[in-house]
């Protein structure tokens, strides 16, 4: 069973002057259990539309999808997922603690477990000192962390996060990345959208690039980075003791090494020079 399985899902909206806007066009995507998947795309690409369809906030015009085997839009599917909306907003008259207790109640968590998990989450996300204060006094980053706390609270098997790092300072971003890495270690599935390629490169197993409602690329991060190798930077020390650094293309590497050995040079270091995820993303989107 896939953690997330999307089959030919599409969504169209009526735009200005009754013009039909295809926000999502026949998306096919499956996320394995235990996989961290990065959904990459520029602003307005269809990332949030996909996520809103998955969470039952909007209904897809066509196609189907399941979350842990349950059809999207059902209460059962939402029971099995932790969802963080983009720029989350929570009842600002409640404190973070009250909100987490409210969320836990909806997830039907036992009182003892809820109290323990609430404390753990508030401490993990550095909200413990502010737990009693109404959220109307929180900064954007703090609200985002409350969002993450409510996502992690009931320890689901699948996490759907819409731009989880937006609004966070570098420390907050590092915290979120560590949380995602930790979830991966614990065999949880994570589907998160972002337009920041660095986030994807560091934490994801696979990546999908979406633009104008169409999935343009779907590949593993390792494969993309491997494919992106343009050549190698080789550091050698000659017989005379001189240190040299050369750039060698992929095809010339073998010959270069053989020549260096035959000339009794010492090969100090071979380092691949590659296009990063950002270059890959820009190349796909520009097509």
């Amino acid at each position, binding site marked *: 069973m896939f953690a997330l399985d999307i089959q030919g899902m599409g969504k169209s909206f009526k735009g200005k002057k009754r013009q039909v806007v295809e926000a999502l066009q026949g998306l096919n995507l499956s996320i394995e259990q235990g996989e961290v998947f990065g959904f990459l795309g520029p602003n307005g690409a269809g990332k949030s539309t996909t996520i*809103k369809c998955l969470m039952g906030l*909007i209904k897809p015009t066509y196609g189907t999808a399941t979350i842990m085997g349950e059809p999207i839009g059902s*209460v*059962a599917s939402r029971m099995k997922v932790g969802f963080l909306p983009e720029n*989350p*907003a929570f009842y600002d008259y*409640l404190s973070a603690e009250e909100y987490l207790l409210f*969320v836990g109640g*909806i997830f039907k968590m036992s009182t003892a477990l809820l109290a323990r998990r609430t404390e753990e989450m508030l401490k993990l996300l550095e909200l413990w000192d502010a737990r009693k204060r109404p959220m109307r006094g929180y900064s954007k980053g703090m609200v985002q962390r409350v969002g993450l706390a*409510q996502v992690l609270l009931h320890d689901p098997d699948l996490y759907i996060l819409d731009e989880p790092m937006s609004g966070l300072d570098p420390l907050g971003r590092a915290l979120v990345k560590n949380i995602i890495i930790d979830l991966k270690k614990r065999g949880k599935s994570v589907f998160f959208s972002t337009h920041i390629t660095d986030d994807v490169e560091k934490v994801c197993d696979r990546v999908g690039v979406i633009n104008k409602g169409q999935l343009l690329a779907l590949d593993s991060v390792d494969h993309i980075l491997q494919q992106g190798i343009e050549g190698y930077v080789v550091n050698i020390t000659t017989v005379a003791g001189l240190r040299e650094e050369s750039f060698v293309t992929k095809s010339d590497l073998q010959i270069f090494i053989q020549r260096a050995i035959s000339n009794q040079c010492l090969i100090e270091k071979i380092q691949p020079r590659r296009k990063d995820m950002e270059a890959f993303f820009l190349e796909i989107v520009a097509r």
Partner: protein
Amino acid sequence: MFAIIQITLKGIFRDRVFQGIMVLAVLFLFIPSAASLSMRQVTELSITLSLSLISFILLLLSVFLGATSLWKDMERRYTFSVVSLPISRSSYLLGRFFGLALFIVLTSVILGAAGCLVIKICSGIYPPDRPVVWGYLVLAIGFATLKYILLVGVALLLSTVSTSFFLPVFGTICAFLASGVTQQVYEYVNSPIALQVVSPFFKPTVTLLYYLLPNLAGFDLNVNAIYSIAPDQSGLLLTVVYFVAYTAILMGGATLIFGHREMK
């Protein structure tokens, strides 16, 4: 749904609109002195003023809290976080309704108690011609409560179809104003006198509006409470049945519309 009811109540009690409206309850303190300005029927006047003040506060609360509750959630994007939790949209909406209804009941109890205290003081100082029948007074407050709960239902229904603040607020106020006269207009249009003056198109329109708009005339038991007149029991039963049926239709419509609404 219980969690939503709790959240609704917390939200109202911490809302400045509620706190502002409840300041009006201070006016209860002035009722004995205002009633004593009358040369006679001081107790009757204190009952009238008390019931009117309760009614006015409940009207403001039901219109503003009922009409803004759902709208505020959508406007401030709270619904994204809540509707994506494992709770059905109907449970969310009904939770909101029952939360607001419970709040209206609690407010009526508090205001009713304050009103009864004021009337007791007035009747002690200026004994009335007819003894105050407390049961009728409680009935009048109870039916006023039902009336405003029904109005909350109207406000919620209008909130589900609208993206702006204006339709729920002004729609509810219009529905409230119309609800007081629908019965009289309907009876006039169907009377023999109206046959010659009312156009054939007007009569079915009035009939349609009569059934469509809430008829709140039956909920007004103020006269019974003021003059200690026993209310018609079958009429009361019919009003309760009307309240249940009309509220059920309103909330049924609201949940249907809200269930299909897209949270863009």
